[in-house]
C-alpha cells in the first residue's frame, strides 16, 4: 500500500460514481476517436477519389517561340521544337519516379483537326481528341453523357461498335461534345465519317462549359493511326495523390525523367482539393474539441463535487501529516486513472463506432476501422493528461483545505 492506494480504494468502493465518470469520459473519448477515424478516412478517401477524378499535373512537349520580324514589321511568332510527346516515355517516367506510388492516373491525349462529315452531309472542321477511355473517364468524373461511352458494352443507344464493323481493332465509336454534335447534326446512335471511316456516335456530352463541348472524342489508337502519329500524344494529364507529398515535387521528378517535356503542376486544382479536405477535417476537429472540452468540464465538475463532498476526509489526511502536494497527487491520480482507462476503452469503442459509421458513408466505402497500438497509447495518454489537467483546479482546492476542517466543532 502507498499513497495511490487511497484514490484506488475510493474508486473501487465508490464504483457507481467511478463508473459514471468513466462512462462519460469514455463516451467523449470514443466520440473524438470515431470522428478522427471517420474524418481521416473520409479525407483520405476523398483525396484519393478527387485525385483519381481530376488531373493536377500537365505534361506538354517543350516548345520554344521565336518572334519573327523584319524592318520593324512583326511577322508573328514561330514555334519550334518537338510537337508531340512519346506516350510510352511518359508512361515509363510515371512508373519509375520516386513518388510513383502517388500517381493515380496517366491520361494521354492526341489533338487533331479533322474534316468530319455528319448528318448534314457537308464536311465540317472539328477538333478531334484521341483519349484512353478508361483513364479519361477516371479524371473526368464530372462528365455526363447522353447515350453511352464507347468503352461501355452497351448503353441506351445500343452497342457502341457498329454491327457492320467486324474488325476488332476498328474504332469503337466517338463521343461528341454538345456544340460539336449540334454543328454536325448528330445524336447518340448517329454516324460520323472521319478519315474515311464511319464511326458510331456512342454518346453526346452534356454541356460542360469547357473545351470538351466543341470536340469529338475518340479512341487514342484510332486518332494516332488516322493521322500517322502512332505512339504520340499532344499532352498528358496526370492525376497524383498528394497526401503528404508536395505536388511540385512529383512534377519535378517527372520533369527530370522527361527532358523534352514541360511539366507543370495545376496548383489551383490542388488548392481546391486540399481546401475541401481541410474544411472537413477542421469541422470535425472543432466538433472533437467541443466534445473534449465538455468531457473535461464534466471531469472537473465531478472532481470539484468530490472535493466538496470529501472535505472532512481531506482535513483528516492533512491532520495526519499529509502534505498539500500529497493531497494534490491523490486527486490528480484519481482523475488520471479515469482518463487513462477511458482513453483505452474510448479508443476501442471509437474505432469500432468509426468503422461502423464509415460503412454508412458512401464517400468512405471500402475504408475499414483498424486498431493501431501507437494511436491507442496516444489516446490513453492524451485522455489521462486531459483528465488530470481538468482535475487540477479541484485538486488544488483540495490541497488548500485546512486540516481544521476535520474538526467538526469548528
Amino acid at each position: 500500500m502507498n499513497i495511490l492506494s487511497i484514490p484506488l480504494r475510493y474508486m473501487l468502493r465508490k464504483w457507481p460514481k467511478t463508473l459514471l465518470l468513466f462512462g462519460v469520459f469514455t463516451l467523449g473519448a470514443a466520440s473524438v476517436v470515431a470522428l478522427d477515424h471517420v474524418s481521416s478516412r473520409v479525407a483520405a478517401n476523398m483525396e484519393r477519389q478527387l485525385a483519381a477524378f481530376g488531373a493536377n499535373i500537365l505534361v506538354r512537349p517543350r516548345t520554344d517561340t521565336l518572334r519573327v520580324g523584319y524592318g520593324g514589321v512583326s511577322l508573328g511568332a514561330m514555334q519550334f521544337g518537338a510537337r508531340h510527346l512519346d506516350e510510352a516515355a511518359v508512361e515509363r517516367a510515371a512508373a519509375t519516379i520516386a513518388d510513383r506510388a502517388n500517381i493515380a492516373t496517366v491520361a494521354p491525349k492526341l489533338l487533331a483537326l479533322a474534316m468530319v462529315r455528319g448528318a448534314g452531309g457537308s464536311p465540317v472542321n472539328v477538333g478531334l481528341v484521341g483519349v484512353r477511355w478508361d483513364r479519361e473517364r477516371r479524371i473526368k468524373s464530372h462528365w455526363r453523357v447522353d447515350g453511352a461511352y464507347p468503352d461501355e458494352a452497351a448503353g441506351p443507344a445500343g452497342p457502341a461498335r457498329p454491327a457492320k464493323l467486324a474488325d476488332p481493332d476498328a474504332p469503337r465509336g466517338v463521343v461528341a461534345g454538345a456544340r460539336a454534335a449540334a454543328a454536325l447534326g448528330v445524336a447518340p446512335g448517329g454516324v460520323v465519317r472521319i478519315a474515311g471511316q464511319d464511326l458510331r456516335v456512342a454518346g453526346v456530352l452534356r454541356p460542360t462549359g469547357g473545351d470538351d463541348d466543341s470536340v469529338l472524342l475518340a479512341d487514342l489508337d484510332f486518332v494516332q493511326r488516322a493521322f500517322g502519329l502512332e505512339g504520340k500524344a499532344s499532352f498528358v494529364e496526370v492525376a497524383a495523390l498528394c497526401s503528404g507529398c508536395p505536388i511540385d515535387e512529383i512534377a519535378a521528378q517527372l520533369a527530370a525523367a522527361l527532358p523534352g517535356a514541360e511539366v507543370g503542376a495545376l496548383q489551383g486544382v490542388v488548392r481546391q482539393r486540399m481546401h475541401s479536405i481541410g474544411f472537413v477535417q477542421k469541422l470535425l476537429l472543432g466538433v472533437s474539441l467541443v466534445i473534449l472540452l465538455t468531457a473535461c468540464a464534466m471531469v472537473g465538475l465531478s472532481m470539484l463535487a468530490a472535493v466538496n463532498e470529501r472535505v472532512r476526509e481531506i482535513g483528516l489526511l492533512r491532520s495526519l501529516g499529509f502534505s498539500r502536494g500529497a493531497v494534490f497527487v491523490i486527486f490528480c491520480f484519481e482523475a488520471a486513472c479515469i482518463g487513462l482507462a477511458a482513453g483505452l476503452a474510448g479508443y476501442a469503442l471509437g474505432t469500432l463506432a468509426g468503422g461502423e459509421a464509415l460503412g454508412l458513408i458512401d464517400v468512405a466505402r471500402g475504408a475499414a476501422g483498424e486498431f493501431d497500438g501507437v494511436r491507442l497509447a496516444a489516446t490513453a495518454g492524451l485522455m489521462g493528461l486531459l483528465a488530470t489537467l481538468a482535475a487540477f483546479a479541484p485538486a488544488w482546492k483540495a490541497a488548500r483545505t485546512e486540516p481544521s476542517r476535520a474538526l467538526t466543532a469548528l
Partner: protein
Amino acid sequence: MLEVRNVSKAFAAEGTVTQALHRINLAVAGGDFVSVAGPSGSGKSTLLGVMSTLVAPDEGAVLYNGENVAAMGERGVDRLRRRDFGVVFQFHHLMPTMTALENVLLPFLHRLRPVGASLADRARECLERVGLAHKADCLPAHLSGGEQQRVAIARALVKRSRILFADEPTGSLDSATGDRIMELLCGLNAEGLAVVMVTHNEEYAALARTRLTMRDGMLADAGGTCCAACPA
C-alpha cells in the same frame, strides 16, 4: 513538551467576530493527561485545534519541545503531525472506503514507497490492543461508533505518537462504550502517552491529571485529580 503562550484566536462570520481564544497559556508535560471541559462555544475544540497545529493562532505561539511550531514551516508541521501528534475526533473520521487495518496504516500512506510488512504487523498489533483484531478487514460502515473510535485511537498509536489529542472522543458514544474508550485512553496514558482531551463529560474530565475548564475563550480554572482515578 507542549506549551501554549498567550494564544488568541478569533473567527469572523457574517460580519460578526467571535473571540474563540483569549490569551491562553498552558503547558503539557510528557505523559500528562489534560482534560478541557466547558460549555459549548467556550473555545475547547479551538484550543485543541491550536495545540495540535490544526488551527493557526492569530496571536501567541505554540511551542513543541521548545521550538515555535509557526517557525517550523509547512513541512516541519506536516512532519510533526505525522510523527509526534495523534488526533482522535468526535465523529471518528475514518476513511470510509478503507478497511480498519488500512485506516490504521493511513499515517504511513503519505508517500509512494509501499508500507512494509513490519508496519502492517504493527498496525495489526494496535488493532489488537484496542480489541479489534478480528475487524481488521471491515469497512467503517460495518463498525459501531465505539469500534470506529477505537480504530481512530489505534491509528494514533501505530505511529507511536508522543501526544494524543482527543476531541470529544466519547461525545457520540453510549456510556458503556464511552467508558471503554476512556479506559483505553487512561491505559495508554499510564504507558507514557500524553493525552489532551476535550470533553463535556465531567466524569471523564475528572479522570485527567490536569483538569481545565474554559469559558468564553478563557481558561476559567484549573484543578487536578490523580490519574490513579483512571479505571486501569
